[in-house]
């Protein structure tokens, strides 16, 4: 009989070693943007996007991975967060609230939207829930795209520009600054900001997962009827999942708006929801580290391909045989397929998913 050990047990085995490991990782993460900047500042931006997506993936993981609710409209919460920030810190309404004030507002509003989405859909399962959430995502986007008349709220497809960059304690995040003799570019500053937010998000995720709430999510994912019979208020617990997931999206959206300084509804299309979902599934649903890895991987792979496809072709054939962007997309698509074929439960499956998979005869009668 296989014995299950919670993941934390491995780390706990030797606290000293664990701390050394953590310290090493911390140093590596702090040094990372400098290393990346050596190759090109673009890589720092890519890293930032990767972290942003990791935040989104962590949020979606609560809904999909923990609670087992398939959500295809997750990007809507990202959009809500981004628009909250944009409306409260741009010339559009002439409001310029500080970053640390808007972020919680964005999280709260996104959270409300999460409940709004969750409430009518609680009875739906699986693919039906997927389609409703998808519809919800589209509804939010269409509203953002059209709330420009009769009263101009979102400025419609034109988007909102000149959004305030993050500014904390007088430090502007969009310009290059100096710490001692070290030049720290805008993207680098955002990297550290994002990293801190990500770490907080991971800690929250881990703590939620190993809590009474986390167990309740697992229960409804495994068997909703049994969960209800065990006294779990599934309505509340599902709404909580939607709300928590949505707040992560809202926060990520706010930071996104600040980094881009321009947002428009076309950034919040269905494909983005699917992308985030792919990160969650491909990384390993339910496993926090897997999900983060999935986000980082799917953010980096296309960019790495962008940098390598053309040179590789040139080296091999002396010229581009097939257009690089076509190859990039083909390889990306194939990579998605290949990973799932070889690791159907994701790259780093959670223990629970692995067990699901081990049940080889999933639909054998009783």
């Amino acid at each position, binding site marked *: 009989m296989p014995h299950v050990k919670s993941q934390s047990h491995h780390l706990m085995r030797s606290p000293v070693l664990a701390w050394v490991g953590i310290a090493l990782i911390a140093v590596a993460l702090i040094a990372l943007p400098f290393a990346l900047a050596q190759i090109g500042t673009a890589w720092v931006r890519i890293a930032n996007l990767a972290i942003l997506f990791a935040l989104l993936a962590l949020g979606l993981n609560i809904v*999909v991975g923990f609670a087992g609710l*398939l959500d295809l409209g997750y990007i809507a919460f990202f959009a809500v967060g981004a628009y909250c920030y944009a409306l409260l810190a741009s010339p559009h309404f002439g409001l310029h609230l500080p970053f640390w004030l808007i972020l919680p507002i964005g999280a709260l509003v996104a959270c409300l939207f999460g409940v709004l989405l969750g409430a*009518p*859909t609680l*009875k*739906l*399962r*699986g*693919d*039906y829930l*997927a*389609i*409703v959430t*998808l*519809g*919800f995502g*589209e*509804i939010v986007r*269409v*509203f953002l*795209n*059209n709330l420009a008349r*009769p009263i101009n709220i979102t400025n419609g497809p034109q988007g909102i520009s000149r959004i305030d960059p993050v500014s904390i304690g007088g430090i502007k995040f969009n310009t290059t600054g100096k710490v001692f003799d070290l030049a720290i570019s805008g993207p680098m500053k955002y990297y550290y900001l994002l990293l801190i937010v990500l770490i907080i998000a991971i800690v929250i995720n881990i703590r939620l997962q190993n809590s009474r709430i986390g167990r309740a999510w697992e229960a409804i994912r495994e068997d909703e*009827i049994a969960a209800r*019979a065990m006294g779990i208020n599934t309505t509340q617990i599902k709404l909580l999942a939607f709300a928590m997931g949505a707040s992560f999206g809202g926060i990520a959206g706010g930071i996104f708006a600040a980094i881009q300084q321009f947002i428009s509804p076309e950034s919040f299309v*269905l494909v983005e929801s*699917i992308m985030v*979902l*792919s990160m969650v*599934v*491909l990384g390993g*649903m339910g496993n926090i580290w897997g999900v983060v890895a999935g986000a980082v991987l799917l953010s980096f792979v296309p960019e790495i391909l962008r940098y390598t496809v053309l040179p590789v072709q040139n080296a091999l054939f002396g010229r581009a045989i*097939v257009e690089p962007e*076509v190859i990039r*997309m*083909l390889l*990306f*698509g*194939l*990579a*998605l*397929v290949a*990973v*799932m*074929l070889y690791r*159907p*439960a994701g790259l780093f499956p959670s223990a629970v*998913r692995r067990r*699901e*998979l081990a*049940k*080889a*005869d*999933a*639909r*054998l*009668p009783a």
Partner: protein
Amino acid sequence: METFLQQLFNGLTLGAVYAVVALGYTMVYGIIQLINFAHGEVVMIGAMVAFTIITLLANSGLPPVAIVLIGTSCAIPVCMIVGYALERIAYRPLRNAPRLAPLITAIGMSIVLQHVAMMVWSRNNLAFPQIIKTETYDIAGASVTNIQIVIVILCLVLMGGLLWLVHRTRLGISMRATAQNPRVAGLMGVNINREIAITFAIGAALGAVAGVMVGSYYGIAHYQMGALLGLKAFCAAVLGGIGNVPGAMVGGLLLGVIEALGAGYIGDLTDLCAVPWLFAGLAARCAAGEHISLFGSNYQDVFAFLVLIAVLVLRPSGLLGERVGDRA
């Protein structure tokens, strides 16, 4: 009234297109409870192949209907092969994997199919040669074209054929049996793999027909055309109750009509000038003959999705979907 009738015809045609694509989703879903997210791409390939053939033969002197038929009969086998390949490569190995795994491979295959199509047929919007003369008929003041009529009829015929196949033939019964319990179906002597492959091929053939329909009705094909169409059709299938043949039909037609009526009437329904006492400030502008609508045709998708959500909230397994009561 004319306008209403016109909108109804508009919606029915659009809905018929959705319905045929939705049938493809439903066939596959019906048998392995899998959303074949790459079905839209199969439709696209169907349109593209037909485009190539029809363009080649456009000036051959053959009667236009013959050309379209030849185009369709070339598109069908190609799509069937694509459908079969999809099943073999992306779905069969994952039959026992967690539910979301095939979703991701489907997305991957969609990307691949799109970009292969882009290599073959270029990035451009391809204009279908308009070889079939559009005849417009006047029905009680509403204009309907010959192509529209053909589309709606074809859609009904296809559904009828599928219903017959699924409920009256041995293949159909064994397909449904496989859907409900593949292993026990195997114990009855059903070759499940073959059965599933056939279903994919049938679904893909429907996709091919849909592709030709879309291409020749709208006159345009593009390597990404499948995505949105697939999405809408998928919604239609769910609306009707996914896995259910008449459901796909009803869902498709309904979605088409909802969209048309939505586009046609949301503006009127939310005309602020209709309730002048509510918005006194707008009185002057309204008096000038302006219509100030809160929402307009731009919200037709919202409208469609809201109806979809409302239907699902009231009937959690779609309009005609079997309510599989979760027995405790």
